[in-house]
């Protein structure tokens, strides 16, 4: 691996990705976009985990295993999330989450 690249580069990239994801999730109103942004945040975390694992404790693989788990769970989450959005669109013809307020107290 690129021994010349310092750890901080990875961390900065992870932070950037996470922030973009967060910003998107909080500002977009399209449900599909929000799901994509959440995916982005998850991958930013993955990047952090793998990088920290490699630099701080090179002999072990915990961070990488965590990453694999998160990828699997993210896949499941995306499937469920997109399924829900699909049903909502079918029933209401609407992907704008601001217009779907069924849970309002």
């Amino acid at each position, binding site marked *: 691996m690129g021994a010349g690249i310092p750890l901080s580069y990875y961390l900065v990239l992870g932070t950037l990705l996470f922030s973009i994801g967060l910003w998107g999730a909080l500002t977009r109103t399209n449900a599909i976009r929000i799901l994509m942004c959440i995916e982005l945040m998850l991958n930013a975390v993955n990047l952090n985990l793998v990088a920290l694992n490699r630099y701080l404790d090179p002999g072990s693989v915990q961070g990488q295993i965590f990453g694999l788990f998160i990828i699997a769970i993210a896949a499941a989450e995306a499937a469920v999330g997109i399924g829900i959005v699909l049903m909502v669109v079918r029933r209401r013809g609407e992907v704008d*989450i601001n217009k*779907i*307020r069924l849970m309002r107290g």
Partner: protein
Amino acid sequence: MESAWLIPVFPLMAFVLTVFFGRRLGERAGWIGVAGMLAATALAAAVFRDAVASPEGYASSFPWLQIGDFELRVGFRVDNLEAALLIMVSFVSLMVHVFSLGYMHGDARYNRYFALISLFTAAMLGLVISDNALFWLLWWEIMGACSYLLIGHWFEERENQAAAYKAFITTRIGDVLMMAGFWYMFKLTGSLRFEDWQAWVQHNAGAGMDFTRAMTVAALLIFGGAVGKSAQAPLHVWLPDAMAGPTPVSALIHAATMVAAGVFLIARTYFIFEQSTTALAVVAFLGAFTAFLAATIAVVQSDIKKVLAYSTVSQLGYMVMALGVGGYTAAMFHLWTHGFFKALLFLGSGAVIHAVHTQNMHEMGGLARKLKVTAATFAIGMLALSGIWPFSGFYSKDEILLAAYHSQYPALFWAGAVTAGLTAFYMTRALILTFFGRPRDPERYEHAHEGGPELTWPLILLAIPAFAAGFLAPTLFKAPVHEFITFGEHVGGHEPESLVVLVGTLFAVGGILAGIVVYGLGWISTRTLRAALEMPYYVLREKWFFDWAYERVVLGGSMLLARVVAGIDRLVVDGLVNGVARVVVWLGDVTRRWSTGLVHTYMLTLFAGVVALALLILQVTGGLR
């Protein structure tokens, strides 16, 4: 005598059979009850013969329950007294059953009626031979329930329902006191058996003030049960109202069962009363007061059954008074003879009501020409109740007066004598108003006719002991009465006293003559009498204001209490509940503002939470290394 326990089993079986097969059998179901009572009477007669032959009696018991150190033994006992009562109760009940065959003909709830009178009789028979307080209580309560159901037999009328409630609740007040008394005796002796109680009491007799005080408390509590069940003042109010039931039921309640149980309760626990002169005095004076009170009220009643009802209260007062002055034998003997002639009188009144369809004596009159058997037997019952020689009532009443005469309270003797005079007077009045003079309601008179054999034969058969039970008793018992029914040598019989006989007979004859003068010959018109005695007449008409006072004090008191409780309920309890609800509503109102339904809000909240958590962890762990 070993098989005496079977006596209550026969009517009990009749009850069960009638309940299960009564509907299918229709009116033939009544014969089940009659058969049961016939078997019980035959067995009671056999037991009675054995009791006469062997004076020591028979008792049998077995351990039923073992709870820790406490062993509950149950069983039965038959002594001379029990044997005499068994034959009286079963015979009277048999007559009532037969009478009911005719009287209840065509009734909508014929089977229910017969099932219940069989159960009622079974309970009384079981009670008589109980040897422990637990069984006693069991039968006692079954009787209470039966009386409630039978008094309210025609429950379509609200009035009858009310009478049933009244009987049940009033006697229940006494029952609670009795239970407390039983419990107290159990605490003292650690046993529920009357035998153990007696042994304990006699072992500790004369042990000092504390013991006497304990015995007074126990005796008065148990007496409370008798006051309720035997309709003594001030709990006598239910018995006259109990007339709402069918007339044969009245005969059963007033003669053989129920009210007899109360007096028998005092006799059964007499060893407790004996230890306390206070308790005995209370018993004696309350009995005498009740006897006099009820006799005076009976004088002004116009309902034939009410007259008899008050006369029962009065006669029970007589028995209670006798127990109070140590006349154990006299009281039990009177209970025995009274059972016969009071059943006769009630069944006689039932035959009259059956014939004329009214209970008001002012609508009767002259019925002797139409109802010959009823009139003759009613007259026998009336003479027995008035205490005229040689009818049965004379002997037992004489015993009671004798006991009162020899007691330390001579006033009781005179109260008894005056009551005897009043008794003779009102019975004469009832007899004349019903059977003699001109018919006051010609239409009813025209339609009146004697009932069938099932109505007349019980009257005839009951008239025999009502007439002869007094002078035949020593022959039947093969011993003088006070030796046959005895509690102990120191409360045994007294020598007959000619003065007592003279006074008793004088008052009785005087009462009858007064009755004839007023109601038969009409020398003094009732209107003049009423005008002359306006005030006393009013008091008697109002039954000494007992019902009025109950209405005011008990009913008004409960209403007041109910209102207070309702207020507390509304203010405190409801306030608490509603307050909790209101707080929850307020909290919900506040928190629901978070649930906007907007995904962004949730996400923001989530993120804020994560940040807060991260900051907290940093704070706790001291930051990154």
